[in-house]
């Protein structure tokens, strides 16, 4: 559920992102990014987009250009998403109902497709948008990566428990065999 909420949050950010894509001039890009940074106002409350999402948009736009038609289409999708958010009347994107979330996700997928990108949701519930070559345009991964071969504590202790059990069983077997041999002699 939490992951789905994040997904909806991301999808909304994505729509905002692509709605702001410039067709030609870099100055348009600046205006678009400014609009992205302004987020959306719901019932008088400001809803902000995570800075990492905005930066990813900014970086992608700096390296790629879209046609006017693509931009127009994507703007339509973002407007639809904004309308959905306003209709839901929630200021916390984590509290959007499932139906609205699905609407936003569908709009985001369509927007990505129009920009020749593909939106995928991984088995870890992480959202990624990439082009046909696999070049990442957006990812909602944690900004801080695993810079070593990371593992987490739960499976670590589970493994220790299993290994401990095996060790106990082995020792028990050895002791039992030893006792039996003594008995025989």
């Amino acid at each position, binding site marked *: 559920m939490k992951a789905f909420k994040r997904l909806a949050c991301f999808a909304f950010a994505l729509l905002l992102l692509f709605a702001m894509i410039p067709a030609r001039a870099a100055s348009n890009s600046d205006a678009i990014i400014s609009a992205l940074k302004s987020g959306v106002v719901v019932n008088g409350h400001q809803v902000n987009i995570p800075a990492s999402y905005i*930066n990813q948009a900014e970086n992608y736009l*700096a390296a790629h250009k879209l046609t006017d038609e693509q931009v127009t289409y994507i703007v339509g999708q973002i407007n639809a998403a904004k309308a959905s958010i306003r209709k839901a009347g929630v200021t916390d994107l984590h509290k959007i109902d499932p139906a609205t979330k699905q609407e936003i996700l569908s709009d985001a997928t369509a927007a990505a497709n129009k920009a020749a990108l593909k939106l995928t949701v991984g088995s870890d519930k992480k959202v990624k948008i990439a082009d046909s070559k696999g070049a990442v345009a957006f990812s909602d991964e944690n*900004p*801080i990566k695993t*810079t*070593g071969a990371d*593992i987490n504590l739960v499976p670590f202790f589970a493994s220790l428990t299993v290994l401990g059990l095996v060790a106990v069983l082995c020792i028990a077997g050895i002791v039992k065999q030893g006792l039996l041999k003594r008995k025989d002699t």
Partner: protein
Amino acid sequence: MNRRSHTLGFFLTPVVYFLLGYFFLFLALYPFRDAIASTADLFFFNKPAAAEEPMKNIFSAAPDVKSGSLKLRSIQFPTYGARFGRISIPSAKIGADLYFGDGTNQLKKGVGVYNGSSIPGYGQTILIAGHNHTFFHTLGQAKAGDKIQIDTNYGKYVYQVSRTRIKNASDASAYNLRATKENLILYTCYPFNEIGLTPERYYVYADKVSGPEIDKQE
């Protein structure tokens, strides 16, 4: 009959023990499969991670541009996965290729700029990751006042280390991606000699000293 079962046992017993041993080992090591695979991949294999684009290279040597302003249109902005520069910290004996993006492929070949941060010259936060057992193994030797040089495909930048910190990987207070003043953050897993359980990260914070600014309006 008795002899037959003995013969059968002679062959079956080692097989059963072998299978049981394998099963327990598998059970015990299963949670570590990702760590083992990634470590093995890091040290022994050179295949690119799935679903990631082949690495591009847009950097050969940095143009001798150390100050002033650059038009955004005039530079080749790196796309995800591209090698676009080189970072060096002489005091820590660090020298590594700089990639845009911090995925598996990039961190295997060098250090990577998080694509949700910015590139040098953009006037924002530059968040760079590197592995603790390769390129950033000696990051702990970088002290306040040390210089960090970043050469890119569009100019040369110098930063000065202001402080270092050790924080949990999930601690979002370690970075500010909304910053409007250019700052550099390098990080790696901590402790440096540990490959496995590393919930902490070692951060090196630096301020910009010199380098051309990128004019986003142009």
